[in-house]
């Protein structure tokens, strides 16, 4: 059991997402930074889909009421267990009574607190993720509040030795360098209406940066930059959309749909952010800029395969290092 010591409506229980229910209008949900969730879960010996706490309001404090393995991944934050500062993307064992503090990120937007065994909240429609639109899943369908007590699934103790250990995905250092300069680049494949945009619009989309406006949440980010006009007006019938879809409403300013993407939309789609890069947007704060890099579907499949291979390697390496099955 852990006790939440900070109020934070945007701090949510999330897992790898809710699958199989798009046809009911139920969004995918899940961690905005799926890479951080997967590696954090690997650090504490969990399955990759186990539920964790997605923190986006800082500082975030919890008190451990039992001895527990934990890991903090995601944004570059100062993390302290009582008076001991931990390195980024680090896991160790906390003793009952100890307090963990995750400070406001130096770089990035969301931190993930993974707990050995996974957060034990009821699975709703096959997932423990919080769905804010439908107010279900997660912890009573809402953000965490001071005083909430979260149970953790029981599993045999497999404590970290001493100061614990950390692991950093290969891409992270260069991504953090990008974040330091306020820019995040993501690969996109052209969307269904790509050719309906003017030449100038397509050039601007690929060659200029778009700033993330304050109108940004888990559903999506509204961006601001060079307008993206259509060659001629286009009105579409409602159609399925996925996280990563870049829509352009009549204002010409793009919207990126994210973890809680609407299941259907109607705006013209200039592009889709490839699955392997969506986690980067989860770490892009309001005010930072996004650059879209055009690629093709084969490259999108290959980068996703590389990502899956890397995560498997991390899991295997950690299992060896910690001698966990």
């Amino acid at each position, binding site marked *: 059991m852990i006790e939440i010591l900070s109020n934070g409506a945007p701090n949510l229980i999330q897992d790898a997402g809710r699958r199989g229910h798009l*046809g*009911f209008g139920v969004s995918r949900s899940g961690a905005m930074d799926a890479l951080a969730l997967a590696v954090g879960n690997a650090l504490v010996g969990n399955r990759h889909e186990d539920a964790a706490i997605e923190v986006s309001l800082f500082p975030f404090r919890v008190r451990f009421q039992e001895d527990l393995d934990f890991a903090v991944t995601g944004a570059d934050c100062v993390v302290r267990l009582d008076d001991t500062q931990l390195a980024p993307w680090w896991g160790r064992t906390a003793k009952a009574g100890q307090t963990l503090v995750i400070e406001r990120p130096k770089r990035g937007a969301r931190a993930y607190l993974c707990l050995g065994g996974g957060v034990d909240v009821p699975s709703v429609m096959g997932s423990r993720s919080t*769905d804010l639109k439908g107010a279900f899943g997660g912890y009573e369908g809402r953000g965490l509040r001071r005083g909430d007590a979260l149970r953790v699934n029981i599993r045999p103790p497999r404590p970290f030795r001493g100061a614990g250990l950390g692991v950093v995905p290969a891409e992270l250092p260069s991504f953090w360098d990008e974040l330091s300069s306020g820019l995040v680049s993501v690969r996109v494949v052209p969307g269904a209406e790509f*050719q309906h945009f003017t030449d100038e619009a397509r050039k601007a989309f690929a060659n200029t940066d778009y700033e993330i406006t304050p109108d940004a949440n888990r559903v999506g980010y509204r961006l601001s930059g060079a307008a993206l006009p259509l060659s001629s007006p286009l009105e579409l019938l409602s159609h399925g959309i996925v996280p990563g879809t870049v829509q352009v409403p009549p204002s010409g300013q793009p919207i990126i749909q994210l973890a809680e993407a*609407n299941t259907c939309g109607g705006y013209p789609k200039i592009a889709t952010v490839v699955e392997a890069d969506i986690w980067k947007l989860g770490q892009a704060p309001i005010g930072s800029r996004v650059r879209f890099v055009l690629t093709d579907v084969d490259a999108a499949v290959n980068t996703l395969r590389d990502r899956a291979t890397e995560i498997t390697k991390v899991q295997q390496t950690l299992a060896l290092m910690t001698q966990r099955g």
Partner: protein
Amino acid sequence: MDVQILEKPQDASSDAGDIPSMRSTEHRSHALNSGPRLTAAGAGALLFDPGTRLFDAVMQTRLLAMAKRIDATLCANDTTEVVLGVNNLMLVFNPLELHPNDASEMLLKLWETTDAEVVSERTIEIPVIYGGAAGEDLNALSASAGLSVDEYVRRHSEATYSVACIGSMPGFAYMTGLPPELAVPRRKVPRMKVDEGTVIVGGTQAGVMPCTAPSGWHLLGRTDRRLFDPQNSPPCLFEPGNTVRFIVKGVEA
């Protein structure tokens, strides 16, 4: 995020048939005019558009039959999902197990071998109290349609609606069948909060709010019927292909 549902006839010059094929995953039949079109949405999703700009009820029935076939054959594990839209369909899959090119071919074959078979005969009745605070647009909508409130309510409640698809929010049904004289452009500025149970119209479609959420549609009244419960199986009251009737339980000033 706003969700647009627009069903206006298109100028032929802006038809998708004029757009040159762009990517290897985009297939097009050799039929005259615009045939089926497949576009990748990332590595793991394909949007299938049989090629129409006007709502076509027969095509929708055929797409629903195709969606049911996909559900029955592919969706046993949750890595494959089908999202029925309005005259289109999206397949979401794991591209490490099914290459997008193979998924495209499969969808085209399925389409060619699926007939417009009716798969649902169910009729759902929705009791409505029209007007009042929950239906604050009723007077203005009646006036702009040149009808009395009672006449507007009569036409809205006597029409037969069909659930085209579910989407945008959990359990929300896009319904076709709104009498043409009741069609109305959506609000320029969406309301930030419309209550669960509100009966609404937008464009040429009708709907009911399954949860409290933003909406740019117009408010006619309210119902007590619960449309979505995540603990139920299935969680939605409506499913595509259902017939829906609104029953007048009262009209408030």
